[in-house]
């Protein structure tokens, strides 16, 4: 198909002709086109179907405010629904499809909704699909979902990358029209750090869309020259294709840079988009203004658009939506479009001006005090009917109709922190109020200054005032001469007789819907919005809100400012979810921490599991083992029989030093730490101030003034934060210094009856590991393997004779290999988290499952550890009556009466004979495993008064999983309850 509506001139590069496909048809366009401009040049006005009624629609605008021409861009995994054809930059081979139609755009079966429109008025869903309730999910919702809506998702992973970035500046200028460019020149020449963002790929705003001269050249030429000057300044960062989407606290702005959206596929390694977090000292909003429509009967046909959009297509993109164009306006702007069209050789069939004082023209016919009564053309405008001032109807054939109801300043970002714009009677528009986000000022059309000269001046003045405020000297640049036409408008919002007259074209809201909402007593503008969905589509009502408010004001008999406005929120334009995720998805959603033995464990074929951010070996399968339980049972049995090795590096380690280190630990642990001898380790319980257990761990005293404290893997960060709180806020005159050493040391547990013999092979001469020299709970700094510094702790989580040995992390890999080698004669095994868990449950040792943020020392059977002889965090509130009831939960062991039964974690405990109800609940299971040593499943759990119920048979229920059987309450110390093995 030829580009039959392509005109001369424009800012497109005709030396590059590109082929693209819309639906099944191929077309040609040029570099510099948008999808919408290229389609219009090819004579295509119909680009989509509306959300609810499936009405045929074409572009209404030439920018990001577009409600109608939304398409699915690209195919396969890169398919992006609901993309505005008016902002899609054309590239060679582009593919787009229309959406919300079946089977085709021209013949859409769902158009039947339009005939049933009486049934789909505002509130229809609320009123109609009320009952029967069961019908909602199965009948109504699927039907509505199929009928209504926008584009469809690819349902594949997004193959592109997105970055997040951080920029800092003195002055952020939002928008690169005349005001923004003048401001950037002023600030740039002063030496201030400036960032200039514009959502368009060609900076210049309306300078690129108009025909008037600026400084003796075209506006576009002046803009291009100015951009080149700015780009040459090292202190100015010019960012085209970058939309500032939100204004946040303290001068922080969010901006999306579309790095690769104008390419078929991003370059290798390059992101599709970047979400910039811009920290600015000041911001100048130069976001321009948006032309608003007039509401009349059937005002949504393809070919009916803003007059400014027709002018933009004509002047910048050298295309016209049709060869015969009419204009409907209430202000002088419509006439500007008519003149530009005439200059380009397009026939202007009539300018219908609602005003009595409409200007006249020798180039085109003007109908003063006329209004549009009706339009015709099923898939595109073919004729309008004008109600003449002296009565009667005049029919005019035309393929396009430009509509201008005046201009709305783009105040959106001024509202992102609660600011409300104020009504300006002369402009008949809302303008930014005094309650702007701190640090923001507004210039140009966004501030209601509509002439080019005014915009240039206000941009330069705005920048100068900001720079003065920042203490930067600036002189205003010589501004070019430009038009300074005053605004002439007589408000006219809608043709009152109109019924099917579209206010919000993206959400299919009509003037009738607004009247209905008022009739049903939706008085508040926020209620009107939600009841009718006016302004709630992806365009946030950029073209529809004010007309909606005006109609509401009229039916309510109020003035527009008394109706008020709804709130604009970020993002300014629809934003891809991917850019908010950035690089944080898949395995990169958070950092991965590896243990020092990771590489070695991989070589052993270990299966890993996530423990917080850490990857830890879960078990080490041997050839022939097909189920994890086989590996786990073997690791447990072999450790208890001989010796096993486990990487325990992930436990948090905190170095605590200072003259008051002991007193400090005495404050943060509920049990006594002050008198711990040097060379000894003690188990400690840390409480939150409210008496609940925060964490447990060990404290090893390496010197009078030096401790190493361990935390659980999960709580390392919170515990460190808590210790700093106590140090700085509660005990600010204690001499104590803290630093984390978790990553500095590789630490391995060596457990089992042969652990001493194994370690004796690697420690250096003079290190005595005998029970007398190095008893249970001893610690020491030693050397191993011929002089490597190491730390040795005789502590045991497994219940065996056991040690933990630590070396600088870089030697961890070598140490685990050495330990395994030295242990060969003992048939040493590495054991993973599963075996570790089994052994600690067999011993009744608690872990995160028991320290679950609801349990106290009393619940854990450690009530007596909370010292009354000293002050410690949480000790006082652990005495609260509610935490010390006689029937408080107590930690118990559980064994199934039938040894074949499991005792699953999460199951609840009921007294035999009681009904299974929440009020009869006696407790719950926290940790469960199969014990290869006991030959049955065992568990730990909390049971009311559990310590006095040992021996009782109790009912275990899990209604969700169908568990219901009997278990026996036993001591939580299943294995070696006297602890003889660990002291051996």
């Amino acid at each position, binding site marked *: 198909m030829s580009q039959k509506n392509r005109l001369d001139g424009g800012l497109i590069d005709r030396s590059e002709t590109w082929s693209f496909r819309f639906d099944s048809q191929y077309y040609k366009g040029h570099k510099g086109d948008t999808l919408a401009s290229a389609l219009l040049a090819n004579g295509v006005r119909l680009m989509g179907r509306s959300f609810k009624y499936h009405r045929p629609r074409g572009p209404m605008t030439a920018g990001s405010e577009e409600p109608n021409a939304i398409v699915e861009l690209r195919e396969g995994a890169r398919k992006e629904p609901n993309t505005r054809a008016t902002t899609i930059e054309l590239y060679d081979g582009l593919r787009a499809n229309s959406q919300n139609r079946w089977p085709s755009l021209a013949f859409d079966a769902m158009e039947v909704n339009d005939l049933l429109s009486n049934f789909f008025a505002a509130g229809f869903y609320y009123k109609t699909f009320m009952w029967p309730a069961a019908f909602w999910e199965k009948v109504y919702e699927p039907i509505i979902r199929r009928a209504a809506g926008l584009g469809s998702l690819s349902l594949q992973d997004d193959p592109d990358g997105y970055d997040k970035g951080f920029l800092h500046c003195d002055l952020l200028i939002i928008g690169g029209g005349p005001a923004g460019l003048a401001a950037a020149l002023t600030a740039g020449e002063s030496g201030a750090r400036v960032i200039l963002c514009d959502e368009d790929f060609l900076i210049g705003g309306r300078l690129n869309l108009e025909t008037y001269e600026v400084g003796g050249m075209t506006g576009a030429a002046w803009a291009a020259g100015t951009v080149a000057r700015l780009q040459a300044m090292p202190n100015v960062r010019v960012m085209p294709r970058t939309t500032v989407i939100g204004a946040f606290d303290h001068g922080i702005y969010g901006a999306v840079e579309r790095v690769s959206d104008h390419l078929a596929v991003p370059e290798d390694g390059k992101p599709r988009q970047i979400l910039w977090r811009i920290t600015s000292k000041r911001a100048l909003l130069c976001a321009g203004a948006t032309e608003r429509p007039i509401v009349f009967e059937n005002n949504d046909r393809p070919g009916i658009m803003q007059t400014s959009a027709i002018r933009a297509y004509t002047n910048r993109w050298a295309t016209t939506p049709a060869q015969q164009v009419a204009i409907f306006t209430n202000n002088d702007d419509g006439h500007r479009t008519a003149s530009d069209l005439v200059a380009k050789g397009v026939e202007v069939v009539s300018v219908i001006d609602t005003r009595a004082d409409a200007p006249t023209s020798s180039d085109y016919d003007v109908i003063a005090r006329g209004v549009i009564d009706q339009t015709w053309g099923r898939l595109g405008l073919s004729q309008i009917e004008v109600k003449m001032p002296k009565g009667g109807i005049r029919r005019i054939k035309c393929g396009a109709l430009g509509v201008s109801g005046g201009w709305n300043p783009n105040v959106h970002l001024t509202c992102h922190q609660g600011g409300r714009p104020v009504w300006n009677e002369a402009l008949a528009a809302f303008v930014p109020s005094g309650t702007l986000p701190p640090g923001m000022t507004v210039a140009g059309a966004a501030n209601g200054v509509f002439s080019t000269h005014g915009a240039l001046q206000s941009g330069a003045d705005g920048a100068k005032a900001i720079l003065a405020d920042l203490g930067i000297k600036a002189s205003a640049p010589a501004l070019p001469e430009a038009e300074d036409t005053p605004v002439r408008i007589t408000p006219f919002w809608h043709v009152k007789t109109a019924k099917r007259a579209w206010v919000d074209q993206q959400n299919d809201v009509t003037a009738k819907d607004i009247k209905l909402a008022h009739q049903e007593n939706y008085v508040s503008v926020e209620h009107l919005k939600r009841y009718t969905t006016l302004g709630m589509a992806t365009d946030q009502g950029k073209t529809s809100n004010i007309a909606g408010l005006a109609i509401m004001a009229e039916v309510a008999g109020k003035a527009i400012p008394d109706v008020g406005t709804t709130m604009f929120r970020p993002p300014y334009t629809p934003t891809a979810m991917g850019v908010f995720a950035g690089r944080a998805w898949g395995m990169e959603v958070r950092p991965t921490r590896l243990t020092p033995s990771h590489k070695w464990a991989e070589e052993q074929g270990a299966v890993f599991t996530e423990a917080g951010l850490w990857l830890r070996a879960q078990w080490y399968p041997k050839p022939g083992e097909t189920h994890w339980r086989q590996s786990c049972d073997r690791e447990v049995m072999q450790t208890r029989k001989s010796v096993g090795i486990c990487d325990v590096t992930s436990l948090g380690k905190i170095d605590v030093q*200072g003259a008051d280190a002991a007193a400090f630990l005495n404050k943060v642990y509920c049990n006594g730490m002050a008198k711990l001898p040097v060379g000894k380790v003690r188990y400690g319980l840390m409480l939150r101030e409210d008496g609940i257990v925060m964490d447990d761990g060990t404290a090893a005293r390496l010197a009078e003034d030096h401790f190493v404290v361990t935390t659980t893997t999960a709580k390392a960060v919170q515990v460190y934060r808590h210790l700093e709180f106590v140090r700085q806020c509660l005990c600010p005159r204690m001499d104590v210094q803290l630093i984390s050493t978790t990553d500095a040391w590789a630490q391995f547990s060596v457990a089992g009856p042969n652990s001493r013999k194994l370690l004796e092979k690697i420690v250096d001469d003079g290190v005595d590991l005998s029970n007398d020299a190095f008893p249970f709970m001893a610690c020491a700094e030693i050397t191993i393997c011929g002089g490597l510094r190491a730390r040795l702790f005789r502590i045991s989580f497994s219940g065996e004779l056991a040690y933990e040995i630590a070396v600088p992390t870089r030697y961890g890999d070598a140490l685990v290999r050495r330990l395994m080698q030295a242990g060969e004669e003992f048939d040493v095994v590495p054991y993973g988290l599963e075996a570790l868990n089994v052994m600690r449950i067999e011993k009744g040792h608690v872990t995160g499952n028991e320290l679950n943020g609801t349990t106290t020392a009393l619940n854990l059977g450690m009530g007596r550890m909370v010292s009354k002889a000293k002050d410690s965090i949480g000790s006082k509130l652990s005495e609260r009556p509610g935490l010390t009831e006689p029937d408080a939960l107590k930690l118990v062991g559980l064994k199934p009466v039938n040894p074949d039964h499991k005792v699953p974690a999460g199951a609840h405990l009921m007294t035999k004979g009681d009904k299974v109800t929440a009020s009869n609940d006696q407790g719950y299971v926290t940790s469960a495993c199969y014990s290869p040593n006991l030959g049955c499943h065992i568990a730990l759990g909390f049971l009311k008064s559990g310590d006095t119920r040992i021996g009782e048979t109790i009912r275990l229920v899990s209604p969700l999983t169908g568990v219901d059987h009997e278990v026996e309450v036993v001591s939580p110390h299943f294995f070696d309850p006297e602890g003889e093995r660990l002291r051996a």
Partner: protein
Amino acid sequence: MHDLAPLCALGGAEPHTDQVAGVTLTENPGHGLASVAARLGQETACADHLGTLLGSDAPGVGAWVRSDPMSAFWMGPDQWMVSAPFATHEDLAAQLIQRFGTSASITEQTDAWVWFDMQGDGVEQVMQLCANIDIEKMPVGAAARSVIHYMGVYVLRSAPDALSILGGRSSAGSLHHALLTAMKSAL
């Protein structure tokens, strides 16, 4: 001399290097590290000791003083990180304990960190995709703690076209991935 062979943080026997356009990223295991925190009431004495070691004043807020063989950067109030060549100062913490006596708490930090050096034209653009620091205004000899992809880091500026980035050693692989991805994206 012990006979255990060290591994680099990224898991290799030798440090890992990458190059994208004109920027190189190199893992640097050659620094011994120890933290120095002044004891209460010993703040001046501690800073004096540190100044003597460095042959200048102790680094002020956000500063990094490089000297031979020892360097130090500010970590927090009355707290610094001291570095020296690993080959000659593997026992840095023990050496510092001798020097500082009871004026400071010294903690070995050598293997708590992975140390990356990034050098070449465009390191600022790379860092703008990584951390919320005003890298354009960060002078040579400055040290800043920040966050890269949820990982706490120190960023040190060694030259107009060179940065060092210290991150937790256990997450060295994730930090390397983040830096390399940013390099490919920005350069």
